[in-house]
């Protein structure tokens, strides 16, 4: 059974740590994700939120929707406008930080997809769990 956790944060740098802490904590509830993979996901969430904050100029809010299923953990980050420009550039990426960001996102999650709708964009990040869990999570007895 999927479990959904939602978090909404102001698009400001001081809240990025809260987003990755929440996602990291949720990822560890159910078995099937090694600590290293959770750490990878925390990095990608940080990259995505930072990308949005840079575009939004610290205005607006980011909505994170985490869908914790037996086989995958999906994190959808929704923001106003074209908020993930440096994570998914339409043209060539800028030097240094932008290209680092793209490299990290591509390398550290199993799937990353940008979905656009009028006035909003959503970055969908997916990691696959290594094995199907018992469905309820937690440590084995």
């Amino acid at each position, binding site marked *: 059974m999927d479990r959904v956790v939602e978090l909404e944060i102001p698009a400001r*740098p*001081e809240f*990025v*740590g809260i987003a*990755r802490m929440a996602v990291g904590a949720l990822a560890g509830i159910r078995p099937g994700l090694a600590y*290293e993979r959770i*750490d990878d996901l*925390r*990095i990608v969430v*940080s*990259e995505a*939120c*930072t990308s949005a*904050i*840079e575009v939004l100029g610290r205005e607006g809010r980011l909505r994170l929707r985490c869908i914790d299923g037996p086989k995958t953990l999906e994190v959808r980050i929704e923001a106003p406008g074209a908020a993930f420009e440096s994570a998914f550039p339409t043209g060539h990426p800028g030097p*240094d*930080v932008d*290209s*680092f*960001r793209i*490299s*990290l996102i591509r*390398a*550290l999650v199993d799937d990353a997809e940008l979905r656009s709708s009028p006035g909003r964009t959503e970055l969908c990040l997916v990691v696959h769990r290594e094995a199907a869990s018992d469905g309820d999570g937690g440590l084995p007895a």
Partner: protein
Amino acid sequence: MKGTHVDLGLDVKERNGWAVLSVQGEVDVYTAPQFREQLIQLVDQGQRSILVDLEGVEFLDSTGLGVLVGGLKRVRSHDGDLALVCTQRRILKVLEITGLTKVFTIHESVDAAVGANGKG
């Protein structure tokens, strides 16, 4: 000198001609400005051999990488160098993915680095 940010600790010591900047905590978009400012300050003070000790870093993303690359460019423009101390797999992985293991000299310890510099 000590940083004041709640999530980031910065400490500078002199070792055999190196300015050793030890970083503790999380380096992200919130804390990176303080890290950047510290590196700029070291170069402006005339430091030309800077060693950034990442052993106490718990989290590093592309913003932090940008600070390191900016610091390297700045000190190299003054004919200096910036090297790293890092043995943590999680941090090394980020450096490897972004190709920065080929850009920075990475040492296993501060002692190894300051010895390698040949100034002691």
